[in-house]
């Protein structure tokens, strides 16, 4: 009972924050409690706490809600593919997606990952040169429809940057494509190590 109340309080705060930060006005507000119920299928891989069970699966905890919604919409439309997500997203309505996103967004952020200090420092340098923070935020915490990178699985980040670089993953507006195009494999490893080390 106590647990339920505190969850409700957390979700309430998250919901409030979500409303305030988004520049877009939606008619039907997202419902994180309903989202938790709708997200049962997600938990097997992404975890009830939004921390994934495997390094090749992304953590969803504390992702900006729109970043989850946007990826789900693109999986449903088969514009983005991978991890059987196209099939899992197929039956979801827009409102389902907003609710699920609100739930994962409300969870505490994943812990910072330790790593090779030199590699992390190199990643920070590249992040600065490439202006990652101008969209992903000062601590790469994500915002609007733009993903949280802080505390994300390093292996997942590496795979996605390589997919964006090769064109295997959809590049929504050309920005990430042009950002990833000039990165070497070593650069990508360093960037991923840096992002994973943030909280």
């Amino acid at each position: 009972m106590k647990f339920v109340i505190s969850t409700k309080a957390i979700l309430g705060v998250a919901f409030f924050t979500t409303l305030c930060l988004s520049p877009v006005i939606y008619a039907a507000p997202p419902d994180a409690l309903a989202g938790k119920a709708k997200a049962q299928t997600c938990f097997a891989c992404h975890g009830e706490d939004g921390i994934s069970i495997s390094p090749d699966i992304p953590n969803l905890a504390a992702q900006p809600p729109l970043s989850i919604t946007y990826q789900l919409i693109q999986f449903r439309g088969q514009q983005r593919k991978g991890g059987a997500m196209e099939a899992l997203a197929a039956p979801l309505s827009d409102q389902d997606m907003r609710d699920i996103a609100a739930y994962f967004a409300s969870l505490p952020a994943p812990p910072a990952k330790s790593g090779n200090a030199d590699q992390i420092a190199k990643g920070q340098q590249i992040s600065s040169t490439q202006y990652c923070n101008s969209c992903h935020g000062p601590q790469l915490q994500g915002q609007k429809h733009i993903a949280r990178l802080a505390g994300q699985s390093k292996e997942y980040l590496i795979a996605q940057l390589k997919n964006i670089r090769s064109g295997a993953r959809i590049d929504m507006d050309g920005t990430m494509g042009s950002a990833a195009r000039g990165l070497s494999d070593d650069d990508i490893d360093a960037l991923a190590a840096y992002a994973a080390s943030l909280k």
Partner: protein
Amino acid sequence: MKYNMKNSALHALMFAAGMVVVSVAGAQAPAAAPASGIPPTWAQGRTADGMNPALAPNPPGISAMPADEIPVSKLKVPAGFKVELWASGMPNGRSMTESPSGTVYVGTRFTGNVYAVVTKDGKREVKTIAKGLHRPNGVAFVNGSLYVAELSRIIRYDNIEQNLDSPPAPVVVFDALPKDEPHGWKFMRLSPDGQYLYFQIGTPANIVVQPVTHATIVRLNLKTNILETVASGVRNSVGMDFQPGSKELWFTNNGRDWAAEDKPGDTLNRLVRPKGMNFGYPFCHQGDFLDPEFGKGRSCEEFDKPVYNLGAHVAALGMRFYNGKQFPADYKGNIFIAEHGSWNKTQRVGYQVVRVVLDSQNKVVKSEPFVTGWLEGDKFWGRPVDVQMLKDGSMLVSDDETGAIFRVSYGK
């Protein structure tokens, strides 16, 4: 073809140069230094103080709002006019064209769909006639065929009106266009004589010395399949129309970003010579604003001037002349322009349809808001992209945030 290959070679060089610098930077001392090296194309022209994360792009509209949730009552039009929800359920619906039978075709930028809106017995039905296209933003209807401008090619659906429920496979009309993603989506318009498709090839970055193919308006001869440039120095035009009577091409142009919050402006332009006009990009913007970087040693007097400055960052997109009979007489010959609205500006602007009134000399007499209400303080619920005059004299406005089309009518 040869031309295109040269072009990609040039790009390959540019990217190779960028890569070298990046890896050199990566090998340097690991301390977090100020940004150095060649930034990615999307970041060119930005300075450190323009890297404010609060000014990151707006989330693009990629889903459709349910019809009963669209707050159409918030839209405001002048007295005597009426605005209503006309069609919905078209994720990212953008550019529009009307066929002679009254079907309205709608292109998209992010969802890869093309829609057809059919009116039958007073009811409207939305059909998704194409999926999985690459940025099919431009649509034009020619002799029973729907032409679609994707990012790097023009395709055609023959006998489309008879086959809306099972469209034929498209015929590729022209596929040698540049593949750059930035400003690669197209607005397309059929010339009054039915001979040419006009569309833009936008500049492949915010501000850059572009290849000569880019920052242009071109036209494709439908008989010979020859592509020719009709205007250059046009950063990115996502709206154009031919003036009734004069048949001149008029077009909107989006100004560069990150120079300042209040300049340069988006512009309304007029093609008074069929070829050879240069509107200044990347050297001069809005006819009188030298680029802080590329304008050095240049003069705005070298270039052709816009007709009108629409304001900075309003994102002036679709435009049409009003030549119908339904609106009051003083609306005849006016231009309506959809302003998609700003993103990298602290105080949002645009998010409206404006009316531009010309005198008999084609000088702008005034410009005023015509449809407003999508923007509420610092938040928006919709973003107008294109306007389309229907045969009955009413006007459609597409909105890619709600995936809906609104209709503005007068009287009754």
